[in-house]
């Protein structure tokens, strides 16, 4: 993960494309083998994951967490059956803790999951492998692969204990926190903070005596909390034994997906912790550009890039105009700055801009297409200088000079 531009060779492009196509047409064995590569971070995994990235964002990712013994697996069993009954394809990633001493694990969730036989359901058990927070380090990438494989819903189950629940909330579209009835450890764990991340609270074992009290307690606790914009967190009771409340939970999941959207992690990931970049430098620069929210906002496209160079393009639209009806100097500056940023970050470590100047001798109008090309003027151990020329066809419309501070940190 340190090196943004890993040197490991990927499989031939044709082979990779064939695998992605097979995975996307629902070939279980291909998907399963891909998950093994990702889970074990084999050398081929990075390119594979990168190739899946353009297929993300379809799945509704549902995190389910709660204290041990809360009945999560039983609930998931019933819920997944219900979702599948509604004609959807469902994948489950069930995470169990690895032994901190030996690294081994018993992935026992199968005990309560009697749903594995349906063709529309895919279950993968994962060991946490010591990653703090209950999730495995690779779990987000596993979820990506399940998403790319076209599942409508991807359920991620973790053993609830403090931090893991917060982790899951970072990439789930909807977080369900499960509490068993009773005023024992379950509620204590919930009080300890995971209430904050819940989009939906579920009290399981509704057929047992304390369930109603627990539901009331949770509702009281929610009242003490600042209301969330656009969504009021519901408390639902379910019984996997009688099936009560399961359909209503599935309805609520749909409602939350409509209210909050699905695939939110994909958008966030573009800006934040992204998976490793591919080996091909040009492709890596393209991905870095695509991850830049402001670049996307301004309508700037990546054209080309290499060691110390980058070329980007922008078609001037009405959104780029100033009050005089001409292209805003800031838009031109941004275009040049984008080329500068990519060129200066093309050496595998983060470069941070510290100074830049631009000239705007020529007026630019709506409909003009501008191209900015950055080249490396000098690069030392700490500082590097880049020149950028912005042209309209062959005419030079702006020159730009920028200086970066070169860090030793790789891209996330």
């Amino acid at each position, binding site marked *: 993960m340190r090196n943004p531009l890993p040197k490991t060779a990927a499989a031939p492009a044709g082979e990779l494309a064939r695998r992605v196509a097979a995975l996307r047409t629902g070939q*279980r*064995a291909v998907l*399963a*083998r891909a*998950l*093994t*590569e990702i889970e*074990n971070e*084999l*050398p*081929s995994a990075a390119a594979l994951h990168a190739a899946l990235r353009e297929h993300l964002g379809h799945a509704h990712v549902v995190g389910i967490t709660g204290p041990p013994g809360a009945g999560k697996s039983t609930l998931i069993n019933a819920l997944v059956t219900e979702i599948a009954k509604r004609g959807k394809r469902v994948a489950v990633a069930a995470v169990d803790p*690895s*032994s901190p*001493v*030996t*690294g*081994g*694990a*018993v*992935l*026992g969730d*199968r*005990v309560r999951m009697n749903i*594995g*036989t349906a063709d529309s359901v*895919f*279950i*993968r*058990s994962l*060991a946490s*492998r010591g990653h703090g927070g209950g999730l495995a380090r690779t779990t987000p990438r596993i979820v990506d692969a399940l998403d790319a494989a076209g599942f409508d819903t991807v359920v991620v189950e973790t053993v609830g204990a403090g931090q893991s629940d917060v982790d899951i909330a970072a990439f789930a579209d909807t977080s369900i926190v499960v509490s068993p009835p009773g005023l024992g450890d379950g509620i204590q764990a919930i009080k300890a903070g995971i209430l904050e991340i819940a989009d939906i609270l579920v009290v399981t074992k509704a057929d047992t005596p304390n369930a109603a009290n627990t539901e009331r307690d949770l509702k009281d606790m929610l009242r003490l909390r600042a209301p969330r914009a656009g969504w009021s967190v519901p408390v639902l009771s379910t019984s996997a034994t009688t099936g009560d409340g399961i359909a209503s939970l599935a309805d609520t999941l749909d409602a939350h997906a409509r209210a909050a959207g699905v695939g939110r992690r994909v958008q966030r990931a573009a800006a934040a912790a992204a998976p490793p970049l591919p080996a091909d430098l040009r492709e890596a620069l393209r991905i870095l550009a695509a991850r830049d929210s402001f670049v996307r906002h301004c309508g700037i496209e990546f054209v080309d890039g290499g060691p110390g160079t980058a070329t980007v393009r922008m078609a001037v639209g009405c959104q780029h105009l100033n009050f005089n009806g001409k292209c805003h100097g800031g838009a031109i500056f941004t275009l040049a700055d984008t080329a500068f940023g990519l060129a200066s970050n093309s050496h595998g470590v983060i470069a941070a801009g510290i100074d830049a100047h631009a000239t705007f001798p020529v007026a630019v109008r709506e409909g003009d297409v501008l191209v900015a090309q950055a080249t490396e003027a000098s690069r030392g151990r700490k500082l590097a200088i880049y020149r950028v020329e912005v042209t309209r066809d062959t005419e030079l419309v702006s020159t730009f000079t920028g200086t970066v501070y070169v860090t030793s940190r790789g891209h996330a």
Partner: protein
Amino acid sequence: MPDPAFRPKVLITKIGLDGHDRGSRIVAAHLRDAGVEVVYTPPWQDIGTVVKLAVEEDVDLIGVSSLATDHLIVPKLMRALREGGAGDVAVIVGGIVPDTDEKMLLDAGVSRVFHPGNKLDEIAAFVHATSAKVRASRFPSA
């Protein structure tokens, strides 16, 4: 020596009609403590379910526990694994298997049959070595 970073992933299960699961549970717990990632199922799995599990979980090895003649349908399982595209998964059987039937199982492609009296460490060592071979054949360049 197996790669220390390598974690075998195995499925411990029971097919057929019998449910005596003391052995499968002991073996699963011991394998965990020997650094193995174990997908454990309760007894009474259909052969079709075991094949689907083996494929989806992409396990290296399946351990089938049999105490009351359920080993007689293990050859059916071997066929179903091959037909389901999981013919490269190693299969071991443990429990009460008469000698005459042991040969039948080995002929059907079972890697090894463990009996009462085999030590847990012996089973764990075999699982490590066999899983490593299966994984290496799947990812030759890794």
